């Protein structure tokens, strides 16, 4: 659907873990958004806040965002109640492409990078003939969000935590390397903090296609201000950057340089 400014009502608010809140809104047109796209949401402060969709469910008409409280804007959002309005621009950006049905598919999420991958998995899991693997990692146990949602939909995520408080101790890189060893031509969709994405891209290099959902500080969110750039892999051609808000946030790993 084309992007628009809309005021949506918070239909459901759920504290999913300490400092993690998911807000649901009913908007039948919005559920047609592509997983990986985001909403630019009005909070307090000078700028809107970009948040990816965690759910886009045409059957129920519900869309959602799941976020970690890290500052003023997310704290304000976390304090909203059911029934209150939210002002958002969306859906914005280019989301994930549909996965190839016959290629093994691995979704690798770190922290609040897990929610957009849940939306992708929910949208496309039935279209895959090849096996699907979900790897979900975070610093510590409560930050590994949406594991129960994957389970309810029939997947058993491989979980990692840096501190070993849940699943395997370490990062998502361990399970990802093992998966790549047995699925060398698989397709990888990843979302999470930039250092994690850089490591994922390096690990997947030479294997199958790898799509990354990036973050960058944004101004407008619609392509006008050129704030949200990341370096293009090929700096010889113009422009030497890609805009996360409208060229992305999803990029093929070869397209960008993560520093």
């Amino acid at each position: 659907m084309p992007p628009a400014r809309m005021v949506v009502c918070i239909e459901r608010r759920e504290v999913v873990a300490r400092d993690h809140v998911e807000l649901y809104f009913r908007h039948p047109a919005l559920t047609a958004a592509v997983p990986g796209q985001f909403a630019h949401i009005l909070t307090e402060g000078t700028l809107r806040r970009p948040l990816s969709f965690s759910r886009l469910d045409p059957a129920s008409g519900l869309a959602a965002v799941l976020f970690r409280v890290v500052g003023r804007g997310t704290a304000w959002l976390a304090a909203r109640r059911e029934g209150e309005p939210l002002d958002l621009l969306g859906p914005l950006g280019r989301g994930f492409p549909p996965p190839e049905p016959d290629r093994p598919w691995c979704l690798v999420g770190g922290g609040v990078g897990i929610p957009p991958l849940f939306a992708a998995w929910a949208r496309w899991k039935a279209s895959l003939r090849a096996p699907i693997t979900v790897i979900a990692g975070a610093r510590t146990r409560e930050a590994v969000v949406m594991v129960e949602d994957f389970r309810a939909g029939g997947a058993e995520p491989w979980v990692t935590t840096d501190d070993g408080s849940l699943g395997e101790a370490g990062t998502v890189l361990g399970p990802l390397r093992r998966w790549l060893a047995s699925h060398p031509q698989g397709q990888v969709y990843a979302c999470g903090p930039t250092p994690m994405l850089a490591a994922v891209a390096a690990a997947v290099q030479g294997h199958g296609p790898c799509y990354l959902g990036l973050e960058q500080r944004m101004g407008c969110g619609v392509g006008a201000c050129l704030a949200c750039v990341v370096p293009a892999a090929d700096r010889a051609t113009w422009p030497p950057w890609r805009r996360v808000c409208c060229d992305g946030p999803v990029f093929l790993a070869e397209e960008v340089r993560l520093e």
Partner: protein
Amino acid sequence: MSDNPLAVEVAGMALPNPIIAASGTFGFGPEYAPYVNLARLGAVAAKGVSWDPWPGNPPPRVWETAAGLLNSIGLQNPGVEVFCREDLPFLRRAQTRVIANVIGRTIDEYARVVERLEREAGIDAIEVNISCPNVKEGGISFGQDPDHAAAVTRAVRAVTRRPVIVKLSPNVSDPVAIAQAVAAAGADALSAINTVIGMAIDLKRRRPALGAVTGGLSGPAIKPIALRVVWEVAQSVHIPIIGIGGIESAEDVVEFLMAGATAVMMGTVTFRDPGRMEAVIEALPATLRALGFECVRDAIGAAQGFCEEARP
């Protein structure tokens, strides 16, 4: 003149209302088209264009501050040729007034860009951003020295028949001296202000927040600075002034008008509220009436009179 109470004339440019989208905050127009009716705006100032493409600064390029925004975009743009070929056609079709914003690193570059634009239809005025580093003078900006600012103005004036608006930087000790110099050099109007230089530290990463270390502050935080510059410049030059800096409401607009501005530009507020410029246009007639003005023209410089009376 028409009976539209919002109509103003800036340097020969007839605007249906005094609200202009500020350069660099509105792209080249199409980006905001899903959210804003461009024809409704007084005018649109396009993103600054140079002769060759400029890559801009490394990210992060924005950082939110109390009541403001720091940016270090670094004037990234595809160059005037691409602007003319790919971006101008959209603006021409948008049925709005178009202000082309021009940047350069040498006086010759400014002039070449304006000369190239002269061949194109659909541009109503040229805005010259003199906050660019002057490569021939060790990188200090053209806007920081009255002689350099006047030289750029003269060079641009010589190659265009269109109105020339020179955009002033607040990062100088005496903006009036710059304003007088560019007015004497042939500027038809002034716009003030560009962003105020500043910086922030990213506590968690223990380094400057912006990739370019320093950046330009915009938003409500700079409104008092902008008003002071407009006020002082209005008393010392006789060309129209376009007020810019932290404008978010019809009341803000009237403040700038009363300080001596003929029109205004709105920038940072569009990021949070793309509809704000149109909302301000909608609210402006009633706001003017409530303050005892029949039209925008009546409010221009209204506070300057008080100053005269207060003098001994």
